[in-house]
């Protein structure tokens, strides 16, 4: 066994000749126009409406994400204006209480899930390959899949408003208010299913961003010297990988409680509403930093350029990002200071919440220091950056105030918090994003803006914002709670609200003017010259507007920055043109950035939209309450998902590609450590977090919830033990088979191993099914419901492992696996191992509960 592994490693080393030297010679120059035609032919979208459904190009998808996010921003903004109109007087008659609940819930949910997160995803998708020096994201089809899930899910959520069926439990959807007893309608299901469907796009983006930053950088650009935006987005994506799973788990559990009466959150049967709060805020707090980090990345990019200097303290900023990533997972309880937390815990979370201000302060002062060192040019993006400082500093300080438990007890759930959160979100996210739009617009549309409009929009937004929200702190302190639509007995709050409402309208006018300005720039702006801000980063090393393929040849150590625009266009960089007629980009080693292989990326395809439609059909049937046909949606998803695997394999060996003089790299089919492999690892990190959240639920309910211990279970311990061991043995056998299949891939015995893997995976699933039949009725007690959930987790992963085993077996039988080509086998191994590990924990847990 060890023998075999070492030969394999040597094998790998041979298959992926890493380039050692720091320098890479230049390719001979070619005619730029010819290269452009050759590449554009391969990379551009299909014309017309077919392009809409088939594009996978990060440029197109990223812009589409951002444009859609701004449309949802406008919808959320209209809802905000309805809120302000309603609150302007104490007996507002616009909206009755039911409608008011829907409107503020939808305003919050749209702004968070359909505006902020998608906007940053769109920015990352559009910008990352350009700023890092690649031709596309690591998984173009995944970008498109995410987009359609976002579009479909978001549309359904918004349409629910028209039918009066919009979610109405507040954007954090606390149970029991949102369970079936108190929300019998479909409203809460729209939120749970719609948001979960949309979050597929967040998970897709998180995996993609992580892998792209780690592996799709310019040749020999070490991680430690990549543009700061890379670090910020890496922090963001890692937080998304770990932050979203608790929310997704919570939503699934709550939906299962609503649909099938499994009592995860029902105190009467051993559940607890506190579990929802913990799961929600385990996501919800990191969420705030997920939103803030990309915006801070934009600031760290733009401030030095417009101050004509270098950023101050690159290393300190990277440390601040890493610090924020870690700290932000230790703060969620500060949203729950009033639920009755043991007081040592209060002190701990209060201190942690205050501590998180430190990395933020480091960044603020680094930016001010940068401006201090340089000479600030007062261009439009800088104006928005000033707006950011003036707003975000105050939002941060009120945040520190709220971290102080005694004060929190007064201010919590009042308009003080509403003011604080808008200072942070609009100050810390919207202003920097508007700066980013103003800054990158020339690259997006190749045009320069129309004078004057942008400044006017800024001042309207800025004055409108502070007029709306500054006084709202006071509204909260004099006692007005959030989420009330009328306050007939409190005339003293009326004039405060009226002021907020008037300025709210001014602010909206500002946003409308901003949108108008962008459209004017797009249509009538004069052509911009290259690199209009004289920025150093690579996204400016291309003609304006950015071409579909970004770089005619990819940047390496000789083409380090925006100054290399001509050599790159002439093909002196790596991998010039598209000689094989494929979309290709260079994949590097994560740390050093040494080129390792060439990835062939997917071209225009309708597979993503079909897949999201298939997934969407499942969600739609769940929403309609057709629970017994909903599995058809899963089946449809599995069928389309099967097609995705094709890109992992090919049926012949390809010669290595010429990348630069003296450097030939293999294509991705002939290496082990592909983008897909890294992506699978990233996905499993998220998956492991989901599993850990589930275990947290088991522990939490057992310790904290009333009505425990659970009633005696009807499981016979010994048969259960025997079948569990049998299932685990089958999974282990499958894992071993998947390893042997790789080791013997050049051998005829390969087919034996893939077939064995397939059979034992199937056997494992069947045995899990037996256990499922034995489990107690999951509606009886939360313990039984959680057992059902852990078993469901195991079954889902069994099905994934089975699909991969089937793929491997079919590949083996059709000659798509060879000494050089591994197909899907390495990814199959990963999932087998994960399935085995998590199932072992789950089954052991059930058995331990039985014995104790």
């Amino acid at each position, binding site marked *: 066994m060890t023998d075999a592994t070492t030969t394999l490693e040597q094998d790998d080393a041979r298959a992926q000749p890493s380039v050692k030297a720091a320098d890479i010679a230049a390719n001979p120059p070619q005619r730029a126009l010819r290269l452009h035609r050759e590449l554009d032919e391969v990379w551009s979208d299909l014309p017309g409406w077919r392009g809409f459904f088939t594009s996978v190009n990060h440029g197109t998808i990223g812009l589409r994400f951002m444009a859609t996010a701004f449309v949802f921003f406008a919808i959320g903004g209209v809802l905000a204006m309805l809120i302000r109109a309603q609150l302007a007087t104490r007996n507002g008659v616009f909206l009755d209480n039911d409608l008011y609940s829907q409107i503020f819930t939808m305003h919050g949910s749209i702004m968070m899930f359909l505006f902020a997160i998608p906007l940053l995803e769109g920015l990352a998708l559009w910008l990352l390959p350009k700023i890092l020096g690649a031709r596309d994201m690591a998984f173009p089809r995944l970008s498109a899949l995410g987009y359609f899930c976002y579009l479909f899910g978001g549309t359904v959520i918004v349409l629910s408003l028209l039918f009066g069926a919009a979610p109405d439990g507040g954007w954090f959807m606390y149970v029991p*208010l949102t369970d079936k007893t108190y929300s019998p309608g479909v409203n809460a299901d729209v939120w749970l299913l719609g948001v979960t469907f949309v979050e597929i796009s967040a998970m897709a983006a998180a995996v993609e961003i992580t892998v792209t930053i780690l592996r799709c950088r310019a040749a020999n650009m070490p991680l430690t010297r990549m543009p700061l935006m890379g670090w910020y987005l890496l922090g963001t994506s890692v937080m998304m990988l770990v932050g979203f799973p608790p929310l997704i788990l919570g939503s699934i559990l709550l939906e299962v409680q609503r649909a099938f009466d499994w009592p995860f959150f029902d105190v009467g049967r051993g559940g607890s*509403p506190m579990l929802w709060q913990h799961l929600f805020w385990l996501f919800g707090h990191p969420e705030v930093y997920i939103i803030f980090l990309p915006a801070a990345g934009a600031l760290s990019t733009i401030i030095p350029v417009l101050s004509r200097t270098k950023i101050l*303290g690159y290393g300190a900023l990277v440390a601040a990002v890493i610090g924020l990533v870690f700290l932000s997972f230790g703060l969620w309880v500060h949203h729950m200071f009033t639920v009755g937390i043991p007081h040592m815990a209060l002190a701990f979370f209060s201190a942690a919440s*205050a501590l998180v201000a430190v990395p933020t302060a480091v960044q603020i002062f680094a930016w*001010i*220091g940068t401006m201090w060192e340089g000479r600030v040019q007062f261009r439009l993006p800088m104006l928005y950056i*000033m707006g950011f400082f003036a707003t975000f500093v105050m939002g941060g300080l009120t945040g520190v105030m709220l971290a*102080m438990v*005694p004060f929190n007890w007064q201010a919590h759930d009042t308009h003080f918090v509403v003011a604080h959160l808008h200072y942070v979100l609009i100050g810390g996210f919207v202003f920097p994003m508007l700066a980013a739009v103003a800054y990158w617009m020339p690259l997006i549309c190749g045009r320069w803006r129309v004078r004057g409009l942008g400044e006017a929009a800024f001042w309207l937004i800025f004055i409108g914002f502070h007029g709306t929200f500054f006084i709202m702190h006071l509204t909260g302190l004099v006692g007005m709670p959030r989420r009330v639509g009328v306050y007939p007995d409190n005339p003293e709050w009326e*004039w405060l609200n009226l002021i907020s409402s008037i300025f709210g309208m001014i602010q909206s006018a500002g946003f409308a003017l901003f949108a108008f300005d962008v459209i004017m720039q797009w249509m009538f702006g004069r052509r911009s010259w290259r690199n209009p801000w004289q920025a150093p980063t690579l996204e400016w090393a291309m003609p304006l507007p950015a071409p579909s393929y970004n770089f005619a040849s990819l940047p390496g150590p000789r083409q380090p920055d925006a100054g290399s625009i001509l050599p790159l266009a002439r093909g002196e960089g790596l991998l010039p043109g598209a000689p094989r007629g494929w979309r290709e980009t260079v994949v590097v080693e994560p740390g050093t950035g040494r080129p390792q292989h060439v990835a062939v990326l997917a071209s225009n395809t309708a597979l993503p939209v079909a897949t999201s439609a298939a997934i969407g059909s499942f969600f739609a049937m769940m929403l309609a309450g057709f629970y017994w046909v909903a599995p058809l949606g899963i089946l449809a998803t599995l069928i389309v998902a099967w097609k995705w695997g094709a890109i992992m394999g090919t049926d012949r060996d390809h010669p290595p590609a010429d990348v630069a003089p003296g450097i030939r790299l293999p294509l991705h089919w002939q290496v082990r450590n592909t983008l897909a492999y890294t992506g699978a690892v990233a996905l499993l990190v998220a998956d492991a977090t989901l599993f850990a959240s589930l275990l947290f639920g088991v522990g939490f309910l057992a310790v904290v919830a009333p009505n425990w211990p659970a009633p005696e279970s009807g499981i016979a311990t010994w048969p259960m033990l025997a079948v569990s061991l049998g299932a685990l043995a089958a999974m282990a056998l499958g894992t071993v088979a998947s390893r042997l299949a790789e080791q013997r891939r050049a051998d005829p015995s390969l087919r034996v191993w893939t077939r064995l893997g397939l059979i034992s995976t199937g056997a494992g699933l069947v045995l899990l099914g037996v256990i499922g039949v034995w489990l107690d009725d999951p509606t009886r007690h939360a313990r039984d419901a959680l057992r059902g959930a852990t078993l469901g987790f195991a079954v889902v992963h069994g099905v994934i492992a089975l699909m991969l085993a089937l793929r491997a077996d079919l590949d083996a039988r059709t000659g798509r696996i060879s000494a050089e080509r591994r197909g899907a086998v390495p990814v199959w191994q990963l999932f087998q191992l994960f399935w085995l590990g998590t199932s072992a924990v789950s089954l052991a847990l059930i058995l331990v509960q039985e014995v104790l």
Partner: protein
Amino acid sequence: MLAVPLLTACNGPLSTLNPSGPVALEIARLWWAMLIGAGLITAMVMVMLILAIRRGPMLTEGNTSERRWIYGWGLGFSLSVLTVLLAFALWVGERMLARDDGAVTVQAQASQWTWRFVQPGPGGQPVMTEGVLYVPAGQPFDVAITSTDVIHSFWVPQLGGKMDAIPGHPNLHRLMADEPGVYEGQCAEFCGRGHPFMRFEVVAYDPAGPLPDFASITGPMVEPAFPEDVSGFEGTGQTEIPAQESSE
């Protein structure tokens, strides 16, 4: 200067800036202190920003500037401010926790969308009321907070902070009113359609004087939140209490 008339114009019976008990008073003090600090810090950052924009480029030699901005301001300044603030807030918070000192315990039970209270009435007998809670002024009391349906939150801004009413997880909340009087309270956690109207009153009476007229109600008695340690009045089972059983 402008702030004073501004404040009086909106400082009503639900204002946290109008404290009538020691807890609310401490928190209001904490707030004013934090406001001053935050105002100073904001002003300081704005001045730095303006100076940074105004002055021409002056590259400082070596990495002294990094040391100044990152370590001096970013780490040193923020850590010291936060440490002081946190210590102060912990000290304030520590003194407002409910503790075992024989203070009166009253029950507050939230339901969509009303509050029921049980408090010691004439002769120490438990009395159940709806929408009005009677407590002695000038001495601390603990509110045992429960909910029969969804999550609500008990909040009397003039007396102190809020505490959630969560089904299955009773909470104890210490408050005190300095003077006899009527203090307004409201539900602070969104609890459905009737949330804006889920108001109540706390009547603080002079313990030395005659008891007020308890507007008691009948019905199934509020379940005790902490059956073991609700001292003072035992009989809070499912007993019926006759209407208008009050003093006089």
